[in-house]
């Protein structure tokens, strides 16, 4: 459904160099620190920026050549951009009807009501959570095949985050062929939602795994400094040393559990993986 091949884009002090593929019916997460290149990647997929080189194919076409009809198959929620904040939801309904033939007004109204979003209040008076929900609902309002969600849960409290994630899950349940690309720097959001995860750092993909494999294979090995010296490091992909111990990230936790029965091997969450790969000792 989406294929990026050697996509390159350069800004002052930043280089993006990405290859990735998102098949139909998958939920793919892009995770990385702020400024890692997640939004730039999504903008390239949407044809909002021109790549310096490389190939982009979305729904079988180059994004810069998208027609209006092609764009109707994509629903987008950008992190820092939406309709003008002077509009109310009632205004937005009228505007969306003008853009999309298959805008489902009843469904959109129902979902807005379910999320307790006021229809006649200007968006500028909405809370952060309300704006985030509205952005996602707008993206879902016209039965798009592909949803592109840039940091849909950024800045939200845990309840609002769950509400947004539930909206995405419900959308996927309606049609299993729908695909979602979701970027976030909040890993727990992606753990329970994504089929696979790309980790981006400094404009490059540094890890791509199925979420199940990532959570099943990766583990945290905690050892003393002495134990670390004798440890077989062939499956250690990140380490962090403190005064007395070393915390290691392994891509084969089973190997260490079986061969080093005395050391502690714990399950790794995506946060641990990010911290140890991106923030660990070099």
């Amino acid at each position, binding site marked *: 459904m989406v294929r990026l091949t050697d996509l390159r884009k350069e800004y002052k002090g930043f280089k993006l160099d990405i290859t990735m593929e998102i098949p139909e019916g998958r939920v793919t997460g892009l995770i990385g620190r702020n400024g890692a290149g997640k939004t730039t990647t999504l903008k390239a997929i949407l044809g909002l920026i021109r790549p310096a080189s490389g190939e982009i194919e979305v729904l079988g076409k180059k994004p810069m050549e998208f027609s209006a009809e092609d764009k109707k198959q994509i629903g987008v929620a950008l992190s820092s951009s939406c*309709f*003008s*904040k002077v509009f109310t939801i009632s205004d937005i309904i009228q505007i969306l009807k003008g853009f999309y033939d298959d805008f489902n007004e009843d469904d959109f109204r129902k979902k807005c009501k379910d999320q307790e979003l006021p229809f006649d209040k200007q968006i500028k008076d909405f809370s952060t959570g309300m704006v985030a929900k509205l952005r996602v609902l707008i993206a879902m309002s016209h039965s798009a095949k592909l949803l592109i969600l840039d940091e849909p849960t950024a800045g939200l409290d845990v309840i609002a985050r769950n509400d947004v994630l539930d909206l995405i899950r419900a959308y996927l349940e309606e049609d299993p062929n729908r695909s979602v690309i979701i970027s976030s720097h909040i890993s727990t959001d992606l753990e329970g939602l994504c089929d696979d995860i790309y980790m981006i750092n400094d404009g490059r993909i540094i890890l791509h795994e199925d979420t199940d494999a990532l959570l099943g294979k990766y583990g945290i090995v905690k050892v003393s400094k002495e134990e670390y010296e004798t440890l077989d490091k062939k499956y250690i992909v990140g380490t962090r040393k403190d005064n007395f111990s070393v915390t290691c990230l392994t891509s084969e936790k089973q190997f260490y559990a079986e061969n080093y029965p005395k050391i502690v091997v714990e399950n790794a969450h995506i946060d641990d993986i990010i911290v140890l790969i991106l923030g660990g000792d070099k």
Partner: protein
Amino acid sequence: MKGLLIKDFKILLNQKRFLLMFICLAVILSFSMDSTFVVSYISMIGLIMMLSTIAYDYNDDGFSFLMTLPIKPGDYAVAKYVFSIMGVTLFWLISLVIQFAVLAIQKESYVLSDTVLLDVSMLALFLVILSVLLPIDIRFSPEKVRVVMFIIFGIIMAGVLAGKAVMGILSDKFGMVFFSRPNPFETVSPAVLIIGLFAIAIIFLSISMMYSIRVMQKREF
């Protein structure tokens, strides 16, 4: 395109209090001013209102989101021209209603053909001004637009003053005579004049719109 026009119309409605205030002010002033004042004043307000919709699109990086909607970048420029031409014309029509209502209330005598000719010429002039200002507003961010406008009006003012000074010197020292030809409003038939003015406006708008479409097509969001 339809969605963009609805969006701009909603932005305009959002400013309805300002609009009503300006129109009321125009009505009050028109009793003490020349009858053409209300036409130029309200048309100018309309022009400013149309251009202000672009600033709303710029705010909060709104262009990025707009370009994810089912339109091509060039469609944005076309919709903005369609909306602005319609808007300026609508404001001009409102101003005509007020102008003739005030003339009727004041029971002033006027030559209908002269008044209409002047009003229609003013519409053509505002469309030409629109054709100059729209690409600037589309090309530059609202912050830069102010600077660009300041520079453009500065250059025009400087040009006018310099031209006047040069003509004064040439006239004084060499006895050259300027503007000796008769006023075109008096020599050319009104129909030809109106057609000519609108032809100029259409040419200006066409060139301007082509430039704006190119600006949007080249832009990254």
